[in-house]
């Protein structure tokens, strides 16, 4: 039994358009382990939403296989759907019904009592406004109602597709805090986003896709390689470079400063230099951010373009 909550192999999706076939996802292998918040990162039009829609049975895959909780989907989707909460693209509810009525309909369809509706509404901070019509809600309230709907199931897996789209800064912070809390409480969250900072702040691991293909996947810290590059300022750069090279570090001179690439702790750098009687004026970890990684990975792809043939 795999401990992967989401697993896709060779997933492919073609759309038939007036101009021929359009390839949205091409051979995507996605693996999301249980627990934590997993970012699903890619530029607009890279195939994130299409992948999510296929996982949830809203779109049919052209080829490839998908599993949720080890069960093949869409064939076994009914047996696992109660464990999955999802918000796909913008929140979609009946505009003339109140928020509460919308939730009640969904709750009744899975046999959940009305008390769960109250709890969900309270969790997302909509108490007092749940009696208002959905069409009167602000975008932030709509997003919160959509998250409340996912909580009706008490899900083990939460799939959120661009949940902070269109929100004001306060709303964005609230949603991110909610996602972090859910992740910390044992819910596996797949957070689809094109906002790099969001993934970097909220997610523990991430998958980056571009043009419908997997580009990279792993822990966020590993992806951005935090702490592997240091900038040193020393009085004798040439001597220091020699000492560090002898100690096994990769060093490049950058004017009066040195750049050291290493996965070893920075204390080893200071110890090596001190041992040679060279005292540091400055040691700064040069932290690559996800944006840098993302742009490097997607450099070969035209952002937003989907495969056409």
């Amino acid at each position, binding site marked *: 039994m795999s401990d992967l909550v989401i697993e896709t192999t060779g997933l492919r999706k073609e759309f038939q358009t007036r101009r021929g076939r359009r390839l949205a996802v091409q051979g995507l292998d996605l693996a999301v382990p249980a627990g934590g918040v997993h970012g699903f990162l890619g530029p607009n039009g890279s195939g994130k939403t299409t992948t999510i829609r296929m996982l949830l049975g*809203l779109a049919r895959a052209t080829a490839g296989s998908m599993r949720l909780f080890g069960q093949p989907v869409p064939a076994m989707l009914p047996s696992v759907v109660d464990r999955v909460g999802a918000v796909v693209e913008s929140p979609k*509810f009946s505009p003339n019904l109140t928020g509460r009525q*919308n939730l009640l309909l*969904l709750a009744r369809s*899975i046999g959940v009592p009305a008390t769960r509706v109250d709890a969900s509404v309270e969790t997302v901070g909509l108490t007092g406004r749940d009696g208002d019509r959905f069409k009167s809600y602000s975008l932030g309230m709509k997003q919160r109602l959509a998250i409340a709907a996912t909580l009706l199931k008490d899900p083990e897996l939460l799939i959120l597709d661009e949940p902070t789209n269109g929100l004001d800064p306060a709303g964005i912070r609230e949603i991110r805090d909610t996602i972090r809390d859910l992740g910390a409480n044992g819910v596996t969250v797949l957070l689809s986003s094109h906002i790099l900072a969001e993934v970097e702040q909220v997610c523990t691991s991430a998958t980056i896709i571009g043009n419908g293909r997997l580009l990279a996947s792993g822990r966020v810290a590993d992806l951005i390689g935090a702490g592997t590059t240091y900038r040193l300022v020393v009085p004798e750069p040439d001597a220091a470079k020699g000492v560090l090279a002898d100690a096994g570090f990769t060093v490049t001179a950058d004017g009066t400063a040195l750049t050291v690439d290493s996965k070893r702790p920075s204390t080893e750098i200071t110890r090596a230099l001190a041992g040679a009687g060279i005292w540091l004026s400055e040691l700064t970890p040069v932290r690559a951010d996800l944006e840098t990684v993302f742009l490097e990975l997607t450099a070969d792809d035209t952002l937003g373009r989907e495969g056409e043939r």
Partner: protein
Amino acid sequence: MTRLLRVELTRLRWRRAVLLLVALAVLIPTVIFGATVWNTRPVSAGDLERAQQLVEQETQSPGLQRELQRCVAHPRQYGLDPSQDARTVCEDMMLPRLEWFTQRPVLDLVSERENTGVAVAVVLTMLLLLIGTTFVGHDWNSGSMSNQLLFEPRRAKVWAAKAVVVLLTGVLVAGLVLIAYWTGLWWVAERRGLELADGAVSDAYRQAFRAALLAGFAGLGGYAVTMLFRSTVATLGVLFALAIAGPLLLTILGFPGHLRFMPQNNFAAVLLERTSMTDYSRPECVEIGPTMPESCVVRLTTRDGAGYFGGLLLLAGVPSLLSFRRRDVP
């Protein structure tokens, strides 16, 4: 499935457009009922008194009196036989009579079946068709269909639950309205002491049953077409084509047996058990009389009409279900 049926029933009840259409389904037949009862009301003593006054008023009018004098003086000019008593025949011809002002149709369940009974059935069928259409059109329009499928991904089950709710609601609403309508007319006829033809009441209820089924299946048809096209507007376009443009085209093109495919003819056949019409589009059928061939008359039975509408329902329902199961949901 029971849970899903209850959810869909609640969804239907909570939809304002549906409530409005149900209200119209009650209101319009009520208005038709009221008009029928009013138009067939018996002549009261007050009516007679007013009529008598009108007769006297008309009789005394100078214009009529002048005309009467002229008639008496020159009966031949008025096409009357001069050998008869001119005053008598002229008065007989020209003076107003009481019955001219008191003539009203008598409430007759048999004739109402072919008149207002059909009108009520048509109204209910149209309204319930719209209920079926708007119920699910709203789901597609708002995008909430995908949200529903995130909670119940078995699409055939979702399709069936919605279909059952639309069908049952249609049959129930139309059935109740029609039973109330015919019971009301029966009650009025009884109160007026009218003698009803043999089987008039049972025939009326049988027609109500058939009309309720027609309305229910019309709702189901509207639902199926909307599930196929995913748009209320597209459904209304298709129904317009079926009801108006299609028959018009068949007539213009001289399609043989086109009367057989007219929705209104089949509707009448189901409702009235049988109907007949003359095909005037054929040259040999233009002259009405004993020389007109028997083949000019197209006769349709309930079975023909049921087959026609059943075929249309299958044409809409099967692709609708298959496409809902297979196509991506936005």
